[in-house]
């Protein structure tokens, strides 16, 4: 699965993207966050304030219950501040 991180989340995790083998039992974005937080402290710290994080699957904004698959691109970022 391709994972992307932006803004302060990328700074805490210290990478902007990566490809990871995710266990097949991980079915939703919320479960993916729990899984990542369990494997490394950097993810745990980045995802600590969960309500401050937004997610996109294949460049579409979704909520934590969104189903994901191995071929998806999942992105994590703070609320947007463009314009």
């Amino acid at each position, binding site marked *: 699965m391709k994972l992307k991180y932006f803004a302060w989340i990328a700074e805490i995790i210290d990478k902007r993207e990566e490809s990871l083998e995710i266990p097949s039992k991980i079915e939703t974005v919320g479960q993916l966050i729990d899984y990542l937080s369990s494997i490394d402290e950097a993810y745990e710290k980045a995802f600590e304030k969960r309500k401050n994080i937004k997610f996109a699957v294949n460049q579409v*904004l979704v909520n934590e219950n969104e189903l994901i698959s191995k071929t998806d691109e999942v992105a994590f970022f703070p609320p947007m*501040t463009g*314009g």
Partner: protein
Amino acid sequence: MHINITKDDFDLTREMNRFNHNKYNYGAISIFIGKVRPENGLKKMQIDCYPEMAQKEIKNVAEIARSRWTLDKIRIIHRYGLLKPNDNIVLLIIGSRHRADCMSANEFIMDFLKSLAPFWKKEIYSDKEIWIEQNESDLKKLQQWENI
């Protein structure tokens, strides 16, 4: 419709020439330019971006604007990367037959860009760096459009 997510600066005269290049039907043009506000002590502004998603999302909102108002042409440039105070960030040019349509659509698209387009700004001072947080009043402006 032209949407460009880029690190490069833009020049208003050049963009207006491109905007007016083909045959057009508009009687009004609205232009908005967003710039890096020169806050006291601000050295740089870093704008992070998810370009693929930004392209899709901005196209979506421009299409919503087209469905709500009578618009002839839309040109949007949004920059990312490391900028300085007073640098250009965003350019939005809309042409329509009548003034009210392009002015309302301009405000609508900018309200969207502020809170829903995937860009993130970080202010860089000599002694600190601050990721700007989403502004509640910007969110309220966006919500107001749902009731119109």
